């Protein structure tokens, strides 16, 4: 395994064009180094892109504009970014829940997406913000909705010669609340047993905007239109939350693993959804 460090975006794209599948892109390494150690991946080359400061920028939304985040922005950078905490609060919160400080120091937003874990904390908030990814290659750039990019468990639409360079998100409209909540064995820092992101707008007591996404409830984190329909135009009574939770469970395909049983995951969805909605309500 050869370790190759690149110092510019152009150098990275040229290397990917030449080596394709034989190169594994490496940023903070919190997933890849672990997978190498466990023998789950054995690339010919590790392409270390962490020094590319040009991919680290965070551009919080100007009024009416989308938030743009470079793929190498670290979780620590996002969770402590004052204006991001205001304009994209669910993503900032989720970034602060990806492992401990050590993981957040080097773990990146692009890595969290590329790794395509069913439990990726940042993905649920990105889905409720209708995020798009920018994929660059030596041929140019293409943009794709994140929900189409996530193909399956540990599978994405990324081509071997492509690099995720940026993620952009719809701004949070005024008066709309947003949250990300999760249950993990070691509190917030552990891999999510279940995570839920919500964006809820309330107009004179009635829900005018409802977006809900969940992770760790199937092979990919996903939006659940049935749950959103159950909340939209409701007054968030207990039976509305019951109906939304039922839709989440119907859309889920949870597994039994070392962290929790599928039964337990299903059991906690209703309570976690209520927490997510309450946080939105307080913030809206």
């Amino acid at each position: 395994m050869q370790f190759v460090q690149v110092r510019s975006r152009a150098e990275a794209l040229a290397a990917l064009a030449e080596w394709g599948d034989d190169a594994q892109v490496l940023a903070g390494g919190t997933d890849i180094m672990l997978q190498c150690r466990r023998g789950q991946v054995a690339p010919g080359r590790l392409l270390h892109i962490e020094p590319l400061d040009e991919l680290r920028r965070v551009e919080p939304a100007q009024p009416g504009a989308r938030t743009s985040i470079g793929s190498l922005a670290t979780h620590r950078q996002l969770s402590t970014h004052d204006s991001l905490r205001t304009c994209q609060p669910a993503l900032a919160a989720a970034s602060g829940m990806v492992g401990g400080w050590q993981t957040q120091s080097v773990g990146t937003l692009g890595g969290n997406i590329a790794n395509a874990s069913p439990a990726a904390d940042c993905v649920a908030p990105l889905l409720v913000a209708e995020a798009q990814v920018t994929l660059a290659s030596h041929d140019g750039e293409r943009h794709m909705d994140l929900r189409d990019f996530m193909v399956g468990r540990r599978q994405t639409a990324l081509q071997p010669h492509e690099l995720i360079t940026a993620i952009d998100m719809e701004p949070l409209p005024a008066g709309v609340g947003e949250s990300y909540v999760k249950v993990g064995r070691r509190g917030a820092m552990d891999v999510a047993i279940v995570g839920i992101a919500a964006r809820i707008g309330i107009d004179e007591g009635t829900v005018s905007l409802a977006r809900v996404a969940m992770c760790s409830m199937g092979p990919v984190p996903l939006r659940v239109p049935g749950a959103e329909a159950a909340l939209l135009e409701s007054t968030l009574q207990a039976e509305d939350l019951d109906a939304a939770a039922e839709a989440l469970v119907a859309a889920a395909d949870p597994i039994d693993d070392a962290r929790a049983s599928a039964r337990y995951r299903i059991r906690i969805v209703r309570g976690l959804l209520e927490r997510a909605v309450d946080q939105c309500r307080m913030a809206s």
Partner: protein
Amino acid sequence: MEVEVTVRCTVNGAARELEVNPSAPLLNTLREDLYLTGTKVGCEEGECGACTVLIDGQPVDSCIYPTGAVEGREVRTVEGLSGPDAPLGLLQQAFLDNGAVQCGFCTPGLLMTLTALLEVDPQPAPDVIRRALDGNICRCTGYQQVIEAVVAAAGSAR
């Protein structure tokens, strides 16, 4: 075949040129090439924080961080907290005074994470200290004495 290359970095203030396999975890390089064995081998999966070192001031699990990635950067380990003039740093002394060291295995990692915290927040509140320690596991102290030690160190530094 693993090819050795030269990685230039600063370790505890001293410039180093390391002839290493750049894919090797920094933890192994520190312990086996530089004999800095204060950094402990714990879970080797980035879960327990026993191997925490500071890279450009940020705590990182050195067990899953490649050595090649520290090229041109500054690494600090627990050995860097003390010097010839002061056998123990302020925080280290506070750990001893407050019973924050029991078996001691997690201690170097705790000290490094907390050193990073005190550099950005010299007077951290107890809940901030607890949050900062999310990635460090201690199975002896229950953390309370650790938190008291940080509060004491922050107070005496004032």
